[in-house]
């Protein structure tokens, strides 16, 4: 493997990314936000498309209350029954949030606002908005629009799509 293309030229740098956030747990939402913010930091254009439970990240009533999944998450190395004990998810979430604060990773509400301030565009998925009976008023004001899958693909044209 080499970094050189077949003609010997260096590969073209990435100019645009469109990131899909489809999960509503803490560990489901953060990777996409970090990728989006990181793209903007490198001067890469970034769109973020929130779909299904990923919508919680931009839902103004819910984005402060996103929890880490403690059941069905083998990465935590916690027995399934222990993960289901009331309060465990809140505890793990608080612990992770504290560790992230130390690394200067913002809480979700601040993070999505920061991405928008950085020039990243936030979109809600129309199918999910309809499915959950939501409207634009349920979202933080930084959300640009509720768009269809077709509009997402149009917007993503010429860039990379990242699904999380």
């Amino acid at each position: 493997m080499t970094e050189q293309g077949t003609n010997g030229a260096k590969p073209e740098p990435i100019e645009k990314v469109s990131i899909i956030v489809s999960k509503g747990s803490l560990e489901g939402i953060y990777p996409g936000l970090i990728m989006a913010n990181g793209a903007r930091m490198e001067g890469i254009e970034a769109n973020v498309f929130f779909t299904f439970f990923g919508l919680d990240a931009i839902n103004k009533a819910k984005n402060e209350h996103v929890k880490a999944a403690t059941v069905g998450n083998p990465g935590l190395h916690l027995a399934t029954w222990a993960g289901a004990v009331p309060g465990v998810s809140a505890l793990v979430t608080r612990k992770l949030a504290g560790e992230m604060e130390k690394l200067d990773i913002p809480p979700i509400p601040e993070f999505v606002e920061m991405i928008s301030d950085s020039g990243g565009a936030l979109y809600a998925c129309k199918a999910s908005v309809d499915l959950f009976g939501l409207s634009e008023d349920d979202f933080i004001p930084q959300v640009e629009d509720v768009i269809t899958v077709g509009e997402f693909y149009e917007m993503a044209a010429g860039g990379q799509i990242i699904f999380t």
Partner: protein
Amino acid sequence: MTTVTYAGTPVEVDPEGFLSQTDQWNEQIAAEIAAEAGIAELNDRHWLVINFMRSAYLENGAAPSIRTLGKASGVPIKELYDLFPKGPAKLAAKIAGIPKPRGCI
């Protein structure tokens, strides 16, 4: 290591153009690095960010994150991206003569 000449002074830079020795920096060098990056003139707001980056680096040994920059430099994030298009943390660090920030945030 490459040597380039800014403002009549030969300085050492890494392959991406960041100064290798922070103490070789001065304001004329900053202006020339900025001009190379497409910022024709550094205004007061640019200097606020540059000086903040430099003092944070000299104090902590690391460049501040974009979050800290937006909260503590006195220049909000939106304006940071207007002042330093194509990535404020990286570009401001380069102009400030400090190493490239290595954080993910």
